[in-house]
């Protein structure tokens, strides 16, 4: 399932996939794959992404209504 919340949060901060990837220390492809729902990140990476986008885990990764 696509992670549109993460994409939206990234867009709000005007970060490109490359910017976010550099902040959390992964490749751009990994960010792209997470957003496309093709890769399940580890909890550590989820937390790093949440910190970078100033969101909580629920807001970005919980599939129900957060």
């Amino acid at each position, binding site marked *: 399932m696509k992670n549109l919340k993460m994409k939206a949060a990234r867009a709000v901060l005007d970060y490109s996939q490359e910017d976010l990837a550099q902040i959390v*220390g*992964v*490749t751009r*492809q*990994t960010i792209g*794959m997470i957003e496309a729902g093709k*890769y399940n*990140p*580890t909890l*550590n*990476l989820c937390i790093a992404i949440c910190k970078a986008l100033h969101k909580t885990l629920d807001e970005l990764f919980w599939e129900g209504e957060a």
Partner: protein
Amino acid sequence: MKDERMELGFLKIRAELCTIIYLFLALSLCIKVFVFGMSGKECFAETAVLVMTPIYQLVRQRQLDLSGYELLKKQSTAKHLVVCVVVAGVVALAAYWRFQQVGSAAEWKESIVFFVAFAASFVAARLVYLRYEKKRKEELDHRYED
């Protein structure tokens, strides 16, 4: 850059590669013993790797607090039975073929004895491993319980 997806991907590839190499070594051992009639001494490299690999795995499992019991239990016994029957069939055919080629039983017997001894110790080691892993699982359950 330490990308977890790439790291996991490469680890997976390396693990698959190791499994393939391991199986090829087992195949190599069979071919050396049956086709070329080599003795145990001549197959030292294959034997050493086939024996040392599970030992290394066991040591690392112990260091990382892992128990393979649940994984082993999940493996289908019916599937294993089919694999064992197929392997035994191939070995029997190879042994028969070897016997036809060699004619005299002396050299042929040495190969068979080596192979049977190796297979028997392999099965025995697996049984011991299973029992050990069961104990280890219980020990770990106990150590990390509430």
